[in-house]
């Protein structure tokens, strides 16, 4: 746990949640786990701030929720990407790529 963590840029949490759910439905705890795995343990989404973001995304209609049962037989609320959410993910990924490219170009300027 001494490894330095990457700071989460404001506004990127939505993108990450959508991306995590694009690989299949998950409960809140699962979203954090999946993001940790996908980032090779570099990303640690703050647990308390995950749910407000998830609820907001649900309001926007990008994901929907359903109570279900986990593999270990535990009751949990699962989130699933909607069609609109999948479109939104593409849009946010493109916008993120543009931003990353722009910042890279500026950083490399001599």
């Amino acid at each position, binding site marked *: 746990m001494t490894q330095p963590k990457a700071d989460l840029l404001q506004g990127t949490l939505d993108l990450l949640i959508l991306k995590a759910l694009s690989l299949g439905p998950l409960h809140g*705890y699962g979203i954090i786990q999946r993001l940790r795995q996908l980032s090779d343990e570099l990303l640690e989404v703050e647990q*308390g701030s995950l*749910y407000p973001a998830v*609820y*907001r995304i649900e309001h*926007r209609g990008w994901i929907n929720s359903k109570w279900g049962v986990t593999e270990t037989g*535990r009751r949990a609320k699962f989130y699933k990407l909607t069609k609109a959410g999948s479109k939104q993910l593409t849009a946010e990924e493109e916008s993120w790529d543009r931003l990353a490219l722009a910042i890279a170009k500026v950083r490399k300027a001599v």
Partner: protein
Amino acid sequence: MEWFNILRARLRALFRRERVLRDIEEELRIHVEMETETNIKRGMAPDEARAAALKRFGNLSRKTELGYDIRGGGWLETLWQDLRYGARALLKRPIFTLAIILTLALGIGANTAIFSVFNGIVLKPLPYKDPDRLVYVWKTERRGMAYQAGDHSDFGSISPGAFHDWRERSRSFGQMTAYRANSTILSSGDLTMYVVTIRAADYSQRSRRRWRPRDCTA
């Protein structure tokens, strides 16, 4: 669609506040339990594992409130609470409430009445062709020349001969007509009516219009 989803969620929360709160609470509680289990698997003692999970998650009831801020009734709930508070406060002071209701009723009623008159007289155009070109022509009496006692009106009547001259010689008007109004009180038995008749003189067309009589019982 977003506003619709939010409105639907707000309305649902308004009537099932407890249910929404329990839903959030349960979701967060399960999250902490999952983290506790993970901690136990990593080798922590159960108590320690739970304490660590709780600490990591932060204040549960505070987080529940944060979630409810988004999923709950929001402004709609606040509005509903305000309405209920207002109703309770008014019911506690019936005389004050009655005074307010009467004041508002009278105010609105008076406004409506005045507007109806204003609308009929000023705003609504007259039911004739080119109402903006209609004018009223009258003769003014020289001071002290009123031919009827108590008639100090500037709207003096004219004689048929004078009207004929006006009509023939004036070039400013397309058409001109004169009218004569009479008012009569008719009574029969215990019913008394005030009747106004107006007769307009027009060479091309004689028309007679009778105003709706006003009934009054005397």
